[in-house]
């Protein structure tokens, strides 16, 4: 009997499921968090993503991957989507999809870029822009399960208007150290001038390499290349650096 259970479970997770939009909230001028109800959702790990498929009336269909933003919560799944102005899918999700509308989702998938509650080592999260989303799922799961694993977050973002999850992160004070870096414009009176992050920023915000933290880096390809390169340059072992680039 057990032999039959495995393929059925795998088949379930990889079949396209209907996801109905139940609510939407603004995270920044260009980003929205979409709350979906997904009957049969099998649960997920922090950092996993889903494939989202949209199909037009004429049958044309296209799919994209989005990280799950929320901690596991029954059949509810939250995606935080940044609008890419000339994008094919994201403007539809952020602006046009109406509450009650459905899309198809498949997943969750991926076992590499995840944080599991049984991990106890220090964690260094490095986010560039909307790369914060899967890292936010890790922060939320850490809080939900009451983990004491020490977390540090370096969040590089263009300007305060582009910042996600600010009020929620501010509440999350126990064991989560946060450093914000602004690349284009800062809040008034901010001590560090706007600019790209440096090796010194990265070292000041994180853990020394001999603490052997697991480093999770998510952002644009340029951000990930630079951050992962600097981490290795200051002595972090490549096998403890996990990356997730988005387009």
């Amino acid at each position, binding site marked *: 009997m057990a032999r039959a259970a495995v393929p059925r479970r*795998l088949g379930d997770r990889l079949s396209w499921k209907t996801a109905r939009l139940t609510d939407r909230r603004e995270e920044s001028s260009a980003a929205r968090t979409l709350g979906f109800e997904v009957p049969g959702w099998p649960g997920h790990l922090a950092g996993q993503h889903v*494939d989202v498929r949209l199909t037009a009336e004429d049958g044309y269909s296209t799919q994209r991957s989005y990280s799950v933003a929320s901690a596991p919560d029954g059949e509810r799944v939250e995606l935080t989507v940044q609008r890419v102005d000339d994008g094919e899918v994201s403007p539809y999700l952020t602006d046009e999809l109406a509450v009650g509308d459905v899309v198809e989702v498949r*997943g969750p*998938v991926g076992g590499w*870029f995840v944080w599991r509650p049984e991990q106890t080592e220090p964690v260094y999260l490095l986010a560039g822009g909307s790369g914060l989303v899967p890292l936010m799922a890790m922060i939320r799961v850490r809080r939900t399960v009451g983990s004491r694993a020490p977390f540090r977050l370096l969040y590089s973002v263009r300007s305060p208007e582009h910042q996600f999850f600010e009020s929620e992160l501010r509440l999350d004070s126990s064991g989560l150290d946060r450093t914000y870096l602004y690349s284009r414009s800062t809040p008034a009176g901010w001590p560090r001038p706007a600019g790209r992050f440096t090796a010194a920023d990265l070292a000041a915000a994180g853990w020394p390499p001999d603490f052997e933290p697991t480093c999770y880096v998510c952002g644009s*390809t340029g951000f990930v290349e630079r951050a992962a390169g600097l981490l290795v340059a200051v002595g972090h072992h490549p096998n403890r650096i996990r*990356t*997730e680039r988005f387009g």
Partner: protein
Amino acid sequence: MAPPAFLDGNAAAGDLELAFGTDMTMASGRCAGCGEQMMLAQTHAYLGGPGTVLRCPVCGSVLLRLVRSPGQTWLDAGGLGHLRIPAPA
């Protein structure tokens, strides 16, 4: 012209799992070109074409190509010296 954009191997997780029946991002392989050993999650994934292409992050060799049509799946893993797939959890 800018080189085509790539993502991490994790981005191909869904299509790979559909072909192999288990999570392949945690599978490890060896590049037949340069000998580098890596998790498929650490490869560079090119998803913009008609299929999925994974390349070695060190030497750029094509490791694996996967093309799916409604009726069939083509898999060419000739760029991998071997592939070690963990038993499903």
